[in-house]
């Protein structure tokens, strides 16, 4: 049964190709998600620090678009594909000698996704060229739910927007060998600064002077605020992202549209960049380098990280109940500079962001909504995770869809030291859970035994220890659901 069927015009093919080419700079595979009114391509990079989402409006972008759900995919269809194979299909074909030859350029492209019981799951793309040749490609795909990163727009008080072409041209002034881009404002001068730097060469031994000359260019570009279409940024706020990601985004933004808008809150919290054109919306969520990271990098001292103190006033502070846990965690970080963690730190100091996504296990349908509610109300769930008996709280009955939908969220504090290998663990467990969730009887035991250790880690790591923040999280989940 054909679930999804759409046709792209010649321009549509090239726009599709551009989008995929942009995504390919972040990841190898892409999640395709189709609904009645839109087609969404998403991807998450391997370090989970950047998330890309392109949304194509069904009625505006495609010449024809038809989605028909089946039993398995009622409201939406999703699958995962290799970007490389898609890129080769949608690559533009040059007309060649247009005078001699008939035009070999693409006239249109029909894409159909066939899936269902007893069917071969295939994405079939049929490219019709102007010279009459039709090429059909049949791609296998993996049925894998997309991972969506969450971004709280309310929280992001800082924003600016500017012509992407201007910004793209400014990027040309940045030399090679740089990794980090610091975006900051100066209200006195009415400028926004884009500063590129790196800390790769930071060992200053006895012959440190030699190394000084090997440092790459330190480039700062000041752009008058008047040049921006909109600027609303806290004065002197420094936000640091990866230059590579930023370049990849701008390259695509320049093709697509005139205006790039950004939203962000504070260091260590995600930043969103978006731009849109007729029928296409491009969104990127990048993790920014946390303040500790920034300080560490500024002072070129990896050890500085260990002696950090909890940042006051940033988000909800650690709740009273969780304080012991929190301090333990801090002490641990302070006193025992874990040797296992140090080498990677020194090896990759310029790595701007550690894995900052926090993957929450998919919620489970509760056996009874009442139980769920009691659980939630009495559970300082995220408060006393120290004892490992706490059961993870199911969110809602309606969340059933979320079973297949691993939701990803930015870690609340972005503390890199502790978070380092957590998400991987969580992911593995999650995979296990996936295979087991089908049998509810096993579930409770399973959750108690396996999941809670993970949850307790979450507690130590994030500041989700606060009931309030937990509630916020729940509401966010709902929001997320709503959005999805």
């Amino acid at each position: 049964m054909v679930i999804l069927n759409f046709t792209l015009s010649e321009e549509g093919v090239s726009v599709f190709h551009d989008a995929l080419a942009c995504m390919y700079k972040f990841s190898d595979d892409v999640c395709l998600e189709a609904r009645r009114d839109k087609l969404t391509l998403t991807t998450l990079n391997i370090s989970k620090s950047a998330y890309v989402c392109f949304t194509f409006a069904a009625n505006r972008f495609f010449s024809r678009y038809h989605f028909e759900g089946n039993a398995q995919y009622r409201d939406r269809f999703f699958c995962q594909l290799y970007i490389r194979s898609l890129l080769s299909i949608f690559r533009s074909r040059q007309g060649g000698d247009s005078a001699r030859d008939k035009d070999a350029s693409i006239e249109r492209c029909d894409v159909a996704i066939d899936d269902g019981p007893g069917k071969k799951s295939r994405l079939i793309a049929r490219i019709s060229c102007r010279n009459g040749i039709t090429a059909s490609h049949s791609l296998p795909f993996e049925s894998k739910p997309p991972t969506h990163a969450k971004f709280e727009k309310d929280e992001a008080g800082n924003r600016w927007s500017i012509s992407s072409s201007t910004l793209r041209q400014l990027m040309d002034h940045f030399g090679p060998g740089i990794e980090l881009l610091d975006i900051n404002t100066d209200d006195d001068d009415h400028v926004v600064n884009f500063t590129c730097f790196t800390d790769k060469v930071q060992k200053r031994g006895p012959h440190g002077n030699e190394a000084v000359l090997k440092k790459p260019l330190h480039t700062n570009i000041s752009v008058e605020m008047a040049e921006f279409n909109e600027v609303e940024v806290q004065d002197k706020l420094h936000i640091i992202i990866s230059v590579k990601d930023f370049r990849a985004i701008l390259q695509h933004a320049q093709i697509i549209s005139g205006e790039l808008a950004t939203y962000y809150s504070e260091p260590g919290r995600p930043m969103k960049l978006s731009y849109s054109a007729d029928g296409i919306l491009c969104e990127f969520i990048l993790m920014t380098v946390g303040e500790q990271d920034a300080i560490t990098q500024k002072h070129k001292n990896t050890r500085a990280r260990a002696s950090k103190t909890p940042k006051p006033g940033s988000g909800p502070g650690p709740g009273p109940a969780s304080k012991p846990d929190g301090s333990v965690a801090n002490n641990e970080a302070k006193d025992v500079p874990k040797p296992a963690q140090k080498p990677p730190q020194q090896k990759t100091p310029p790595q701007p962001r550690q894995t900052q996504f926090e993957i929450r296990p998919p919620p489970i349908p509760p056996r009874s909504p009442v139980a769920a509610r009691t659980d939630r109300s009495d559970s300082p769930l995220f408060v006393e995770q120290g004892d490992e008996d706490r059961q993870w709280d199911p969110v809602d009955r309606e969340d059933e869809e979320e079973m297949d939908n691993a939701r990803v969220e930015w870690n609340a504090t972005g503390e890199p030291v502790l978070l380092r290998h957590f998400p991987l663990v969580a992911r593995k467990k999650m995979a296990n859970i996936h295979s087991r969730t089908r049998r509810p009887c096993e579930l409770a035991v399973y959750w108690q035994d396996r999941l809670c250790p993970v949850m307790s880690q979450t507690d130590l790591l994030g500041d989700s220890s606060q009931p309030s923040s937990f509630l916020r999280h729940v509401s966010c989940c709902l929001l997320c659901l709503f959005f999805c």
Partner: protein
Amino acid sequence: MRFKTELRNIRTFSKLVAALNTLEKIAWVRLDDDTVRFTVIPDTGSQVWASLSVDTIFDSYHIQSNEANNTINLELPLGPLQRALKSALNSNHASLRLTKRDGIPMLSMTIHTMTKDAPSAARRNKNNSNNNNNNDDQMGSYNDDNDPFSENSLYQQESLELTMKREREKVITQDIPVRVLHPDTVETIMQPKVREPDVHIMFPPLLQVKAISDRFTKLAITTAASSSSSSRREAQNPKLELSATMHGSLRLRLIADTLDITSVWDSCLENPELDPAVLPVPIEEHPSTKYREAGPDKWATVRVDGKDWSRVLSVGRLEASRVIACFTHEHALILYVYVRRADDDYPGVGAGRGGDDGDDVVTYYVSSINT
């Protein structure tokens, strides 16, 4: 210690730096009241001593130090400098100053520049003005339902005023890391001493010389790659033989195991007159006089490494007003490249040494490989 200047003739400056950068990554720069000197001394290969008068590349030049002539000695990486100059190429104006950031000395280049008017923005203007036509969008028209104003909460229409931003100047700061050298450390660095040249000759256009030299070098590499392994090491560094006479001939020759190719500019080049006033010996006793008297078959010859020679010839991009080569038989080749100034064609004064007479000259010392 102060150094601050505006930049001019950025293109020339940039090309000079690019030419130096092919030979070595780090240069010694000596600034004083009158001249700027770039010196590149690679571990192996040819040295460059470039001397420019200050007003060739600088304007509103301020320099101050405790040394004589307000000399400042810097060591700087050429790659970043070249990159920074590239930023400055199409700028409104650019300046350079010595400063410190985080305790590290920096040569800070401040560039005031504009971005080109974005074509997409222009197109967007057009779109907005004739939005009713619902076409010509840079994305192409995807609307099948022919309703450009269909409500879609996801994709808001952009408002008109966004597209009418006035272009403003951007300020770019490029910080090049430098080391300030103590005078004592550079005291020992001397220009190579070479005896009076046997032959001095005006070079043909460097592009010609480079094309032929590179061709010879590549030939040597490819032929040796297919021959026995004994000569392979040799082949990695093919040697070219350069010879010249005092009768206007220049010869370029490659001798390999199986090859012997020669290219000759036959009696078509000029041997410039020497100025007796600057010669250490009377003109009659000068070696070049002896070579001239010995006739057109008296060649002064040097052997150079093909790859190094190719790097030397990359100075051709500078669009030199003229290039004079001085051959010291079996010893060295000195190449004086006179920099053409963008604003006024500076008349050269004889085959002068270095930039003492105010000439802007890049001097290459290529030593002969003795076999």
